[in-house]
Every structure is written in C-alpha cells, then in structure tokens.
C-alpha cells in the first residue's frame, strides 16, 4: 500500500473514492411470494453479476427456492392487478419515486396510479450502494424498463396460452391483454390469479424507445402531493412509535477531542432518564426531548483537544500538505503541455479557491432505533441504507440479517429511541463539501485556439476535472490532501469546483484573445452536445447583450458531467458604492438525454441554480481548532427569496440518448457564470468561492 493510501482515509460518503459495492440479498423465493401474494414477478440481475456467474445470458426460469443474490430491481403483478416495483434507491426530494413509477407504468401499460414503488428498505428492496452521483435515473430506468417489459411479455404469454393463440398478435394496454382478432380481453389481475410465476433476466433485453413513451416523458406531479401540503407526510423526525424515548448525544468539545473524564451522576439521578456510556460515546434518553436535553446538560465532561488549522490558513495548508504529487493514477495527459505553452500567443496562469460549505438540509439528520428480540430496526433518512445496515451490524456485532434499515420518504419490545440532530449538530457533525485549490496554466494561439491546458486540483475531488473542450496538449492532476474537516457528498461536489476554475479561466482567456466569451468557447468546443447547450442558453438569454446601465454585467459558463450537459448565462447588477451584488436573471440550458419527467427536471434545474447561488455568492464554513464558528442560519447565509433571480430553464430533450441523471450537473455552471458576469460589470476578476461573502470590495 502506498504512503498516500495510508494517509488518505476517504469518508464513506465521499463517493469519488468509494469502494465497489458488496452484493447482499437474502430473501428466498417462497418468502417473496408469501410477502406479496401470488402473481407474476420479474427480477433484473446486475450486468456485472451475470458475468461473474459464467452462465450464458438469456431469460431463465427459477428451479431452486433461492433467488439470485445479485438482483438489482424487480416488479410484481399481484392477483388483484396491483403492481409493486422494488428499488434500493431513496427518495430525497429529487422526485425519483415519481419518475420511476412513470417508467414502470409506461412499460407495463398500466395507469400511473396503479403502481406502488417500494424503496430503500434493507429487508425488502434489492441491494443498492446508495442514492448519489446522479446514478438512479441512468441505472434504474433501463432496469425497470426491462423487468417491466418482461413482466408484460409473461402476461401476454399467459393470455396466449389460455386462448390458444400466438402471443405476437396480442396487445397489452390499459392493464389488459386484448386479442384484436376476436375482440376478447383479460385484465392483468385475471391473468396473474393463482400464479406464482417468477423469471429473471439479464439487463440487455430491448425496451420501449423514448419516442414511443406514453406516461414517461410527461410532466407527472409528485406522487402523493396532497400529503405534503396537509402536513401528513411523515419524515424520520416525525416518527412517534409507542413508548418513544428521546435521545441526545454528548458531542466532543471539538473535532478530534478525546474524553478524559465524565461525571454523569447528576443526570443518572434524574427520574426517567437513561444514561448510556460506551467508550467515548455518552448519551442520554428520556421520555421528552426537554428532559433528555436537561440530562445531557447535567453531564460534566472534560476533553483533551488538539490544535488545528483555521479557515484563514486553509488554502496554503492544502497546497503544502498535498500527497501524491507524482501519483499517476490521479493524472491524465495527452500531447505536450510544454510545447503547447511554448507555441502560444497568450499564456495565463491562475489559481482558484473553493471554501468548505455545509449542506444545511432543512430536515436535520434523524433516526429512530428499536431493539426487538435481539434484532435492530432503524428508520433513518440516509442515502445509503445498505451501508448504514452494514455499519450498524459492525458496531453492534450483529449478523446483517439482524439489522433492518428503512428510509421513510414517507417518512416494537425494547423502547424505541429517536435522535434528531439540532441545527448546530447538523452544521458541526455532518460533513462538508471539501475545500480546494485549483491551479491552471494555459495557452492560446492568436486566433483563440487552445494550445495548452494544465489543471491541478488540490483536495476538492476528481469529478468533472477533465476539460470538455478540445485541447491537443493537456495535463490534469488531482492531489488528495489528508482531511481537515469531514468531507462528503454534495450536489455536484467536485464538479462545481472544477467547473468554477475552468470556466472562470476560459472567460479570462477569451478576454486575452479579445473574443466574445461565447464565441471563444464555441471555437474550442467540438463536442456537439456541449455546443448545443451553449447555443440554446445563449439564444434564450439574448447573448450577446448590450449593457444598458452601470453595474450591469453578463456572464456565461458551460460544462459536462455524469452524462449530461449544461450551459448557464447570468446577468448581475453590481452597486459599486455599497458593493452589493444581485443576480438578476439566469438562463440555463440542460440536456440529459431522453427526459423522463419534464416537470421534475425543471424543478431540479431551477433548484440547482438557486442552491448553487449560495455557494457561488456567500456560503462558507468558518472554523478554528476543530470548532465550527458559524453553525447557525443566523451566521451561515443560505439563499432566501430575495436572492432568487428570474430563472429560465431550457430543457433539451434528446430521445435518441439514454436518460442520464439530472440531480447534480445543473449546479456546476452557475458560480462561474455569475463570477464572469461580475467581471463583465466591473472588471474585477474573482477567483475564489464564495465570490462576494461581504459584497464586492472596491478594486
């Protein structure tokens, strides 16, 4: 093992460096039909798992009682015609429950309302590594298409057998199979009655092309919307099982602090209070949250703290402590950067910085845990239920089969305990989007053609690190740094940092070449999908625009990440007297292949722009000696109504390209677009995120 790997310990959520998933699935076939009742079921087997089995591909019927252990999705049609689809993914507001339901209804030819999607319950849903990296749509949509298509074929086969006709002439529609020759029809419910038919299939069978979708591709509102506007929808913090106790955890005084002594006598003496101690862990539980907090306050602890850096010396620290300067696996290159630079008409060196920021989800992390006969059930809002199960089994020394993790997007024996993080805990003990330093060295020819591109990212990650522009000579390198603050997933995590540096740099190069920023990008973009989003955004924005008043400025940025393309135009208004910067208008063009739900997609794009404005303009975590100095909404500013510009989302629907995820890429271009617009307005080039935490200081 290299020195780097010893020093660099990735957080489990830091998916860029994550390990391959371990497949686990233990539900036997008889249990499956016992659980769901008789009917017809089709299971998809993960492609790589099939290869491992060394069996020839093609549909197979069950012979044994055991289901394969590598199932990735399944669909069941019950004797009452009810359709249940199972996915290990979690609904986290990205509306995936709705779009997957659309896909199943579309392929099975049943009404949208008749499909129930069971998600993220380790006891009943297929193994899943987690809901992150915009992987749900590209992986789950084709799998559900295939299993559902196969279920439809099974139903057609049952009808054909019953009528003694060839299945090819039959039509599946409106939850029935019809024989156009005779006019007779049978409902799916009738066909499934008394059957326990199960089939597995490899994930390569043909599916309905996007051009023939009827339910998918349409704007279907969020499933169960009424429960959200009436307050009936239950999130994890809302669960109140019988006999519930409220838990509180004693937090260390600072990151890395170790417990030297603890006096819990006073807390233990309180009526109804339970104090739990195990190693460094100290917690209290009580029948009300108020009592639990009082008990926690009565526990007196001493901590040994360790001195740590502050945000003031963050960026120099990152540069000085980068490991693996020569690690080849983190480097990509082609041509000769040195030659490209030598022949350039203009050269530009610049460094960019990105602060740590917090997710600050409005719903704080929470869990309810309950022991029953030595088994543990945990309800929690994780994006990785199977990993949470494995971790719980490890911590409590239990077999995996004794731990069940359920993610309520809808949101008994031993007394259940609920723990809801306070806002301060959320800001302190969650994980942050990693900070980073990015250095770029580049050269262009006199006509604006990029001749050299060298890009070094320190700490913030590899996603989106490669330039989507055509450059003959390039070198790209990621430099990991041992963790300063816990770092983990964030919408568009590293891609946001890499796009900020790249697209700010591209803007500066366009100025050096005395070219329009759009024209400069198009000159260097050979990727047609990249050109298409740039042109679409520019057209709707009205690029190039004339400045009509002082302080007005326009910026553009674009990029590619996780199978989808984005281009963003921004207009800003800068008041030089006060330094106030307002984003007035944003047009964002986005293309992620075939659109599954245009309404949900529009929400994702607009939402990403607004969330991205926070990190672009003012969000930054301040820290010192292992303490977070701004762990409240009062001193950690997130976007509010007044910060929201007029936003137009231009969605390009490419029915000929498989659907990619859309949760993340729409966030990556907003920060550079705004920064470039500020430069256009003022001539001040800002190379650090956030751009204007205290307004624009006079240049």
């Amino acid at each position, binding site marked *: 093992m290299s020195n780097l790997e010893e020093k660099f310990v990735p957080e489990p959520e830091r998916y860029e460096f994550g390990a391959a998933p371990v497949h686990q699935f233990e539900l036997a076939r008889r249990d499956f039909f016992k659980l769901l009742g008789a009917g017809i079921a089709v299971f998809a087997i993960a492609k790589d798992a099939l290869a491992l089995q060394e069996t020839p591909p093609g549909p197979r019927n069950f012979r044994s009682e055991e289901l394969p252990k590598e199932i990735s999705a399944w669909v069941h049609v019950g004797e009452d015609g009810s359709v249940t689809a199972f996915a290990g993914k979690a609904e*986290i*507001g*990205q*509306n995936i429950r709705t779009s997957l339901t659309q896909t199943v209804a579309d392929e099975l030819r049943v009404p949208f309302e008749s499909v129930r999607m069971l998600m993220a319950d380790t006891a009943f849903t297929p193994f899943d590594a987690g809901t992150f990296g915009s992987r749900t749509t590209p992986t789950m949509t084709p799998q559900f298409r295939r299993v559902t298509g196969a279920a439809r074929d099974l139903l057609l086969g049952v009808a054909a057998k019953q009528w003694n006709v060839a299945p090819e002439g039959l039509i599946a529609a409106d939850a029935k199979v019809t024989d156009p020759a005779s006019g007779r029809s049978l409902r799916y419910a009738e066909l499934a009655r008394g059957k326990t038919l199960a089939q597995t299939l490899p994930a390569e069978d043909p599916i309905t092309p996007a051009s023939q979708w009827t339910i998918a591709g349409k704007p279907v*509102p*969020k499933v169960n*919307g*009424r429960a*959200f*506007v*009436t*307050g*009936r*929808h*239950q*999130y994890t*913090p*809302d669960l*109140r099982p019988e006999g519930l106790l*409220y838990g509180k955890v004693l937090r260390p005084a600072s990151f890395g602090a170790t417990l030297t002594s603890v006096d819990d006598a006073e807390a233990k003496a309180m009526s109804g209070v339970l104090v739990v101690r195990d190693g460094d862990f100290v917690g209290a539980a009580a029948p*009300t*949250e*108020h009592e639990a907090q009082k008990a926690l306050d009565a526990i007196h602890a001493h901590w040994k703290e360790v001195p740590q850096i502050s945000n003031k010396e963050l960026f120099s620290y990152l540069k000085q402590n980068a490991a693996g300067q020569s690690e080849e696996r983190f480097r990509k290159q082609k041509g000769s950067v040195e030659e490209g630079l030598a022949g350039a008409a203009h050269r530009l060196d610049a460094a960019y910085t990105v602060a740590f920021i917090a997710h*600050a*989800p*409005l*719903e*704080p992390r929470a869990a309810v845990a309950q022991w029953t006969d030595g088994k543990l059930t945990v309800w929690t809002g994780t994006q990785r239920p199977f990993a949470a199960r494995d971790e719980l089994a490890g911590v409590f020394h239990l077999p995996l089969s004794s731990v069940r993790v359920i993610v309520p997007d809808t949101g008994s024996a031993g007394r259940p305990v609920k723990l*809801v993080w*306070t*806002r301060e805990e959320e800001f302190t003990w969650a994980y942050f989007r990693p900070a980073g330093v990015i250095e770029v060295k580049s050269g262009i020819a006199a006509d604006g053609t990029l001749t050299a591109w060298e890009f070094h990212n320190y700490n913030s990650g590899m996603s989106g690190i490669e330039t989507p522009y055509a450059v003959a000579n390039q070198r790209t390198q990621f430099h990991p740094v041992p963790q300063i603050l816990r770092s983990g997933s964030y919408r568009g995590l590293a891609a946001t940092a890499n796009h900020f540096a790249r697209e700010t740099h591209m803007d500066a190069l366009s100025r050096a070449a005395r070219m329009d920023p759009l024209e400069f990008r198009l000159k260097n973009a050979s990727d047609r999908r990249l050109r298409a989003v740039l042109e679409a955004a520019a057209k709707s924005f009205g690029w190039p625009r004339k400045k009509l008043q002082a302080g007005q400025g326009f910026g553009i940025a674009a990029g590619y990440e996780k199978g989808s393309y984005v281009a963003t135009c921004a207009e800003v208004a800068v008041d030089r007297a006060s330094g106030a910067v307002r984003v007035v208008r944003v047009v964002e063009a986005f293309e992620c292949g075939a659109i599954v739900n245009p*309404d949900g997609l529009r*929400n994702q794009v*607009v*939402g*990403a*722009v*607004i*969330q991205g404005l926070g990190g672009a303009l003012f969000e930054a975590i301040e820290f010192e000696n292992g303490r977070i100095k701004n762990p*409240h*909404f*009062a001193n950690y500013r*997130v*976007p*509010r*109504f*007044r910060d*929201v510009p007029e*936003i137009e989302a231009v969605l390009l629907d490419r029915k000929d390209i498989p659907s990619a995820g859309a949760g993340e890429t729409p966030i990556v271009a907003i920060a550079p677009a705004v920064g470039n617009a500020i430069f256009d307005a003022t001539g001040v080039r800002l190379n650090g995120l956030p751009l204007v935490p205290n307004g624009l200081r006079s240049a």
Partner: protein
Amino acid sequence: MTKPIELDVNDKRYQVKYPPDTPLLNVLRDELGLTGSKYGCGEGQCGACTVLIGGAPRRSCQIPVSAAAGKPITTIEGLEKDGRLHPVQQAFLDAGAFQCAYCTSGMIMSSVGLLQTNPNPSQADIVQYLQGNICRCGTHPRILDAVRQAAKIMQERVR
C-alpha cells in the same frame, strides 16, 4: 409539579403538562402528534415551524408553550376543512411548489398569514414576507407562483 396548560389548537382544546418554557413546537409535535410543523433550526431563522397564533404567523420554536395558552392556534393540520384544502394548500399542490417539501408547512402557514392581512400582495410583498422561510431545494419561483395563484382564487371567492 407543573400546572396543566390549556391549549386551543385547530378548534380543539387540550390540557398539557409541560414545563412552561418548553417551546410550543415540541408540545405540538411530541404531545399532540401534530408533526406537520417542522423543526428546522430551533432559532427562529428558518420558518419551518410556523403556525398561526390568533391568526398571525409565529415561529412556534420561539414561543414558550405558556405564552400560547388560551390563544387560538392553527397548524397546517387545521387548514383543511371537511376534506377541502385551503386555497393556499391547493395552490401549492397545483403549482407543484415543493421538492423534498420539508419547508412546505411553514411556507403555507406564512402565506396564509400574509393573505389574511394583504389579500392582493405584489411580488415584492410576497418576497419580503417569506424572507424568513428557508427552502433548501430551491423551489422559490414556484412558491411565489402558488401564493399569487392563491391570492387570485381567494379574491374571486370573496367577490
């Protein structure tokens, strides 16, 4: 022992035994099971816990339960009447004005409060009024659409 406190929530009367300085939000959620009002920050900064007290929107995480005694309190659960959604609820539903929807209860309660005092708000009025409500999914434009739509419907009903 603490004295029972009388609460009038959604036209129902309750007697609760809680220390008087307990935030109203905790009592609504943990004692009365009205979990539609959300904990977002406990600091009056996010608006997720907004309820109406005497018709005015208040941050229930900042109101001691004793201070709410005897006053008419409306939570998100009390807006629906006889299976009919309040026009603001209906407008949020129609506009698809939520993603994770954790902020939705507070947004709706604040908006109901706004429309009671200002039945025909301008865009700037709505922005100003909802400034204290945080949405982290970035659904703001649709929320503004929903409030404008609700205002229109409510005005038509009055006529």
